[in-house]
């Protein structure tokens, strides 16, 4: 039982990270209908930027951890958002209205570019960071295994919940959210009614990249290591999560992220670590066979 609870907590932590990345995929897909393949690499860039900002703060003498993390969070979000904006501006905006595979190939090119750009700029070696946040709580019977919740896990889950709440409010209540939902339904009509479509799409990329950079920071805190290759695997998993939850649906992305995180953790805990990705992907395939539009997605309407 303790083992189960422990895996549940680990799974939720991992799922939160996937969910934060998945939102970027699902938002972009909802609004312009393309797979932003470079999003996983934007997450990786976010992780690196968080590391660099943290190291810069340490060398400036700011070692009070909560303050440092706060600054890292904000600066990394801003810098990664700039990357997200530039990627959209350079690689996707000129292809607006072009046929469907063109942005996808452009995105794959961008993904290769970002990966190797970071590798050249930061060197190919893995960057290990000693634990920044330590300690935690233990529950359960003395003498038994007990259930550990580390402070990092609490931070990750709490930040995700806070961001999700804020983000849901943003989409539901603000003019920007309204513009986003309008563009999602009908881009041409929205622009006729005075919504600046280009700006809305840019802001979507900015928000997606900012959330991805939070995920990057979480990854750095949780695993204590970043390298230029983490973007691909995390990106594919997060995209799987977005599809599983129903692409285009924001709660779906979060649910899908949590599910993928839980499946992966439980599979590694009870069966085999090697095949955890196979488990996640197989569940994706099975879900899609029986529910072709994902768990929470709207069914695709076929128009003649």
């Amino acid at each position, binding site marked *: 039982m303790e083992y189960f609870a422990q895996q549940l907590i680990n799974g939720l932590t991992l799922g939160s990270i996937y969910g934060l990345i998945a939102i970027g995929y699902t938002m972009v897909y909802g609004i312009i209908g393309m797979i932003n393949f470079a999003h996983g690499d934007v997450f990786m860039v976010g992780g690196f930027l968080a590391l*660099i900002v943290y190291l810069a703060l340490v060398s400036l003498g700011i070692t009070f951890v909560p303050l440092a993390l706060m600054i890292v969070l904000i600066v990394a979000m801003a810098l990664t958002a700039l990357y997200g904006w530039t990627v959209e501006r350079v690689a996707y905006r000129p292809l607006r209205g072009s046929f469907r595979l063109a942005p*996808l190939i452009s995105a794959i*090119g961008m993904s290769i*570019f970002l990966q*190797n750009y970071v590798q050249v700029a*930061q060197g190919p070696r893995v960057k*290990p960071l000693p634990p920044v946040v330590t300690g935690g709580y233990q529950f359960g019977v003395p003498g038994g295994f007990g259930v550990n919740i580390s402070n990092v896990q609490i931070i990750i889950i709490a930040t995700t919940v806070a961001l999700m709440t804020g983000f849901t409010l943003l989409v539901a209540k603000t003019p920007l959210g309204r513009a986003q939902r309008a563009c999602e339904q009908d881009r041409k009509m929205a622009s006729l009614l005075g919504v600046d479509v280009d700006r809305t799409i840019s802001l979507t990329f900015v928000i997606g990249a900012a959330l991805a950079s939070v995920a990057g920071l979480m990854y750095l805190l949780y695993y204590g290591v970043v390298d230029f290759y983490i973007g691909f695997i995390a990106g594919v998993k997060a995209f799987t999560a977005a599809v599983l939850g129903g692409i285009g649906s924001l709660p779906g992305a979060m649910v899908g992220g949590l599910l993928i995180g839980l499946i992966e953790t439980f599979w590694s805990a009870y069966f085999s670590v090697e095949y955890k990705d196979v488990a996640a992907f197989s569940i994706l395939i099975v879900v899609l066979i029986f529910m072709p539009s994902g768990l929470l997605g709207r069914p695709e309407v076929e128009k*003649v």
Partner: protein
Amino acid sequence: MTVAEHDAVTRSEPPAFAAALRDAFVAALIALGLAAPMMGLMATPGPEGLKLEPHWQRVAIAVAVVFVGRLILNLTIWRPGVRKPKTANSPRTDAMLARIAKLLAPAAIVIAVALPFLPGVERYTVDLGILVLTYVMLGWGLNIVVGLAGLLDLGYVAFYAVGAYSYALLAQHFGLGFWICLPLAGILAAFWGVILGFPVLRLRGDYLAIVTLAFGEIIRIVLLNWYWFTGGPNGIGQIPRPSFFGLEFKPGPDGFAATFGLQFSGLHRIIFLYYLILALALITNFVTIRLRRLPIGRAWEALREDEIACRSLGINTVTTKLTAFALGAMFAGFAGSFFATRQGFISPESFVFMESALILAIVVLGGMGSQFGVAIAALVMIGGFELFREFKDYRMIVFGAVMVLIMVWRPRGLVSSRTPSVFLKEKKTIAGALVQEGHG
């Protein structure tokens, strides 16, 4: 057009140079924001953990390049504030390109056939030719799935892997030769194509893309972890080399060289492999061209254009999709078993997602549906890739950037026109813009 741009046009035109300068300055500022943390501060592992190492020089260079580049572009190609109306390539250009392609194609085949015997051609060139032709074949195979049937497949490399492992395992366990294994590998890969095809029959568009990607990853992970069967990450070595219809390429009385009265040379096998892959690639091309004229080929293209119309007209979409998957996979299987026999060693390393992306990029960059365009794209990408081998990491950066640039420049690929397979009176080329691809 945004309000600011509108104002800029209706009011007096600002001096072009000042506007260009301001725009370049903004671009440089953004480049500074991007480059300063990532390129300026390098996290280097030291004795006391990570430390930041300043590299401001690189930032300065990057910002300067962006500033000067943007300024030059602003003054020559782009005019700030004036947006060029977006048009597709004019049908005339497309028709001309298609005609050039038609003339060049036979010439290209002649050059390809003569290549090993041209003066000044060394072993390295022939090796490079083999590599390029492998990708040409894979591109043509994927073209059936993506270009003709319009099914976006991101896990094509899985079938390549199935072909390669089929040959390697059959040869290892049953001692079968290359010529028996080649069709077997094709059949097995086609079988896996059908297995993948079944669950994805109901999926459309991007769901299909992600499921094929997942399938490709599953195959790779299984190959990586199924130690006793596939050798895991160590792969399979000592895969037998192909024989010249039974004659081995070896020194000695019963070898290829002795039988034909030639001096033994290691080059013989390379040249033979070259012709083997050339023949396989041309067969792929020939089959594709002929299939497009058969009912099944027309059904594929109809499926790509409109699935609902297809179903209403009584086309069986199940068999149509499955045959496209199976045939595409079969050619990948052939290419895979060729790859295994050429390398003599295979491991899951060779079948990563990047390979799928590369093959898809070849198909799309070349212009989907255009056989010649795919061949050119394979030549340029793989050839260029090999030529700049010394630059290592930089070459991948350039590779990614070029992919983006080509898409921005010609979203429909290099040769983006095609000849219709059915026509009423005269044959006209169709501009790529009129053809919907990849809507799945």
